[in-house]
C-alpha cells in the first residue's frame, strides 16, 4: 500500500507491505541510518524514535501505522542539541550503538519530566540497554542536559 510518513519534517512516500516495520522504513526507505536495529524484539531500545513526540520502539510499530504522523529520529535533533552536547561532554557513549535510542528516549523523558531525579532517569531508561554498560555517564549526561533544555 502507498503511504506517506513525515520524518523530521520531510515527507517520505513509498509503496510498502503492511508488514514493513517502522525501523525498516526509516533505515531502508528514508535512508536515515542513525536509528539502529538492535535486538528486534522490543527489549533493547536501540530503535527508539519519537512518534508524535512520544518515544516508541520502531521495531514494534508497523510503518503503515505512522502514516500521517510525525516521526523524529536522531537526525531530527539539531547537531548541538543539549542532549547530544551532554552525551559528548559526559562521555556517555563508548561503542555508540545504543546512543541514538538513548538520546531519543531521554528526549521523551525530559519532555514529560523536565527535572528528573537520578532514580526517575534510571526508570525512564528502563527500556534501553547499553552493552558497554555506560549507564553511569548516560545518567550524568541527562542530568546535565535537563537544565539546558528548559533554557
Amino acid at each position, binding site marked *: 500500500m502507498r503511504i506517506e510518513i513525515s520524518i523530521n519534517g520531510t515527507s517520505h512516500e513509498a509503496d510498502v*507491505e503492511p*508488514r514493513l516495520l517502522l525501523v525498516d522504513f526509516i533505515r531502508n526507505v528514508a535512508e536515515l541510518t542513525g536509528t539502529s536495529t538492535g535486538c528486534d524484539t522490543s527489549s533493547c531500545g536501540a530503535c527508539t524514535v519519537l512518534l508524535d513526540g512520544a518515544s*516508541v520502539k520502531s521495531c514494534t510499530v*508497523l510503518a503503515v501505522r505512522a502514516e500521517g504522523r510525525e516521526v523524529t529520529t536522531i537526525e531530527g535533533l539539531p547537531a548541538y542539541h543539549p542532549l547530544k552536547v551532554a552525551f559528548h561532554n559526559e562521555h556517555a557513549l563508548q561503542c555508540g550503538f545504543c546512543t541514538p535510542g538513548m538520546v531519543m528516549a531521554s528526549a521523551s523523558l525530559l519532555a514529560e519530566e523536565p527535572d528528573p531525579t537520578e532514580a526517575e532517569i534510571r526508570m525512564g531508561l528502563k527500556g534501553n540497554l547499553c552493552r558497554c554498560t555506560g549507564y553511569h555517564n548516560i545518567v550524568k549526561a541527562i542530568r546535565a542536559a535537563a537544565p539546558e533544555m528548559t533554557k
Partner: protein
Amino acid sequence: MIPAPFEHVFAGSIAEATTILQEDPEAKIIAGGQSLLPLMKLRFAQPSLLVDLSRVGGLSYIRESESDGGVVIGALTTHHQIASNPVLKERCRILCEAAAAIGDPQVRHMGTIGGAAAHADPAGDIPVVLLALQAELVIAGASVPKRTVAIDDFFQGFFQTALAPDEAVVEIRIPNRDRGSAYVRFTHRALSWPTVAVAVVTIGDEARIALANMGDRPLRAGASERALAEGATVDAAALLADRDTDPPSDEKASGGFRRELARVLTRRALEQALA
C-alpha cells in the same frame, strides 16, 4: 524478524471493525500492538488481516462514571495515560501502579488497557489487577451490538476470553468502592513480566485477591479470601494463596517456587492493603 504477510485496514469505527471481524475469522484487531506484533514477528500469530483501531476516535478517555461514581476508561487509553492520570492516582491507585509496571516508557506509550485485557496474558499486569478490582468490560460486536461482561467471567483459559471472534473491548468500568489496595510483583529482572504477582483490593472487611502467572489465566485466591472472611489472620490466610492453582514451571521459576512466591506475596499485599 518479519511477520508473515497480512492485509491491513484502518477501521473508521468500532461498528466497521466488528463487521470486518465477522467477515474474516482469521482477522485480528490491533490496538497498541505491543503484545501482538512481537508474537507476529515470532510467527506465533499469523492473522490474515489486521483491523487497526488507531484511527477510531473517542476510545481514549478516563472519566468518572455518572451512574455509580466509579471510573470508566476507554479501551484505547494507553498505559502511559493511565499511569500518569491524576483522577486514577487518587481513585484507583492500584491500576496506575500496574500500568506503570508494564514494560518500559516506549511500550507504555503504545500499549492500551483494552488490548491488554483482550490479550489476556496470565502473567500480565493489567488482567490480574482488573480481576482484583472487580471490573466490568463493555464489549461491542457485530452479532450482539453491546454487552457487559463481569471480569470474573471474562478470562476463560490460556489467552482465552469471553470475546467472540467478532467482538472488541470498548470500555473498562471500575466500580466505586471505598478500598485499600496493593499490587506486589516479583520479577526476574527489571524489564520483565512478573514471575508471580498478587493484586489485593479490600472492600470493607472483604478482600479480593488475584494472582498473576499462577495458572492458565489470572486467578482469584479463593481459599485465602474465604479464610479472611471467616476471621483468619493475614498470615494464616496467605498460606492458602496457592490452593487450587496450577503454576507453570519455566526457565524463571519452578511451579513449587511460584507457589511459595504466591503465599509470601499475598501476605505482603494483604499487609499493605489492610494497613
